[in-house]
C-alpha cells in the first residue's frame, strides 16, 4: 500500500525580474520520501525552497500540507517544518545551548535533553561556548541540530553540507536517512552527491 501524500505542489510558478524561473510545477511527496532539487545557479532552487517554507509567495499555484494550503495553516504547518537555509539562523552572541533553548521555545519542543543533542552533532564540549568563537562547520552543525530539537516531519534544507567536513557530512547523511526511515520528508538542494542515502528519492531539475 502506498504512503499517504503529505506535501503537494500544484501548478507552482516563480517569476523573478520578468524571468520565469519555473512554472506548471506539480509534484507530491509521501512519508519517507526525499526531493532533491537540482539546477544551475539562479535556476530557482532556493526560491522553490522558500516558497515551501511559506517565507516567499508563489507567483502562481499552491503548496498543500496534508491537503490544506500552507498559508491557511500557518503555525500548525510550522510545527511540522524544520528549515536550514543559506544562513545558519543562529545568534553569534549566544552560546550553543542558549541557541537551542530558543529553538525549543519557538517551535514544537521535545523532551530531548539539549546536551544529548549537542553530543549527537559532536558539539558537546561547546554547550557554553559563544557561537561567535565556533568555526563555520561547527556553526552549520549547530544549525542542523535544530532539526533534531524540533523533531519536525518536513525538513527543508538549502545546501546543508556547506562548510561540513567529510566526517560531519557522513553523520548528517545517516541522520537524514534515519529521518526518512521514521516517515519524515526531506526537500533539499545540494551540490553533494547524496545518492548513497539509498532512500526513496525524487529528483527535480530546474535547469531544464
Amino acid at each position, binding site marked *: 500500500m502506498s504512503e499517504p501524500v503529505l506535501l503537494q505542489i500544484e501548478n507552482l510558478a516563480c517569476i523573478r525580474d520578468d524571468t520565469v524561473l519555473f512554472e506548471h510545477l506539480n509534484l507530491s511527496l509521501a512519508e519517507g520520501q526525499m526531493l532533491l532539487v537540482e539546477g544551475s545557479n539562479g535556476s530557482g532552487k532556493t526560491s522553490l525552497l522558500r516558497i515551501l517554507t511559506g517565507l516567499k509567495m508563489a507567483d502562481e499555484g499552491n503548496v498543500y500540507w496534508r491537503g490544506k494550503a500552507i498559508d491557511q495553516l500557518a*503555525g500548525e504547518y510550522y510545527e511540522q517544518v524544520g*528549515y536550514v537555509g543559506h544562513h545558519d*539562523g*543562529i545568534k*553569534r*552572541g549566544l552560546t550553543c545551548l542558549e541557541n537551542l533553548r530558543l*529553538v525549543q521555545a*519557538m*517551535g514544537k519542543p521535545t523532551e530531548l535533553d539539549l546536551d544529548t543533542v549537542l553530543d549527537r552533532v559532536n558539539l558537546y564540549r561547546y554547550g557554553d561556548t559563544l557561537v561567535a568563537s565556533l568555526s563555520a562547520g561547527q556553526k552549520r552543525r549547530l544549525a542542523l541540530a535544530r532539526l533534531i530539537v524540533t523533531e519536525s516531519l518536513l525538513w527543508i534544507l538549502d545546501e546543508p553540507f556547506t562548510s561540513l567536513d567529510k566526517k560531519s557530512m557522513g553523520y548528517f547523511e545517516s541522520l537524514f536517512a534515519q529521518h526518512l526511515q521514521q516517515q519524515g520528508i526531506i526537500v533539499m538542494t545540494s551540490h553533494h552527491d547524496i545518492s548513497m542515502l539509498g532512500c526513496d528519492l525524487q529528483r527535480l531539475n530546474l535547469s531544464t
Partner: protein
Amino acid sequence: MNRLSLSQAFIYLLRRDLTLAVRNRAEFANPLLFFILVITLFPLAVGAVPELLARIAPGIIWVAALLAAMLSLDSIFRSDFDDGSLEQLLMSAHPMPVLVLAKVAAHWLVTGIPLLLVSPLLAEMLGMPQAAQGILLLTILIGTPILSLVGSIGVALTVGLPKGGIILSLLVLPLYVPVLIFASGAIEGAAGGLDVSAQIYMLLAFLFLSISLSPLATAAALRMSMS
C-alpha cells in the same frame, strides 16, 4: 508533549534580546551617548542663558530622544535578518505579532529606559523647572515605547533594502511628529503651571493604539520584506 505557552515564548525571546544587548553593550550605549552629547552641546551652541535654555529644554530633550531612538531602530531586526534568525522567527509556531512585541519590548528596555534614567540630570542641567521635570519623565515613559513600536514598522519595511536608513527616516519621522508635539507641549504646559492631562491622555491613546496595531503591521511588513 511539553509544549511551551505563548507567554513563555515571549519571555524567552525578550530574554534572548536582552542577553544579546548586554553582551554587545554598544547597542544601548550608542543611543544613550548620542542623547547626552546632543543635549550637552546645545548650551554651547545657543549660549548659556538660563532663561533661554529652560524655555527650549522640552524641545531639546524630546528632539534628542527622538533622534536617539531613530539611531537605534535598525537594531530591532537587522542582525536577525543578516544571520537568518528572522526567517526562523517567521517560521515559528507562535503568532508573529506576539514575537514582534517581545522584540520591541526588548528594544525599549535597552534604549528607552536609559534615556528615562538620564533625562532628569539633563533637565536639571538645562534649568528646567522642577514642576516640569515629573511631566518630562512621564512623557518619556509613555513616548519612548511609541517610538519603538512605530519605528518597528518602518524597520520591518526596510530591513531587506541595502540602504534602507534614509527611507526609514522618511517613513518614520512624520509618524513621530505627533508624539513630539504632545510631549514637548505637556512639559511646556507643566512649566507654565497649566493642566497637561489632555496631552498625557493623547500620548496614552497613541501608546495603546501603537501596542494594538503596530505588532500586526510589523509582522505583515516583515513577511513582505522577506518575500
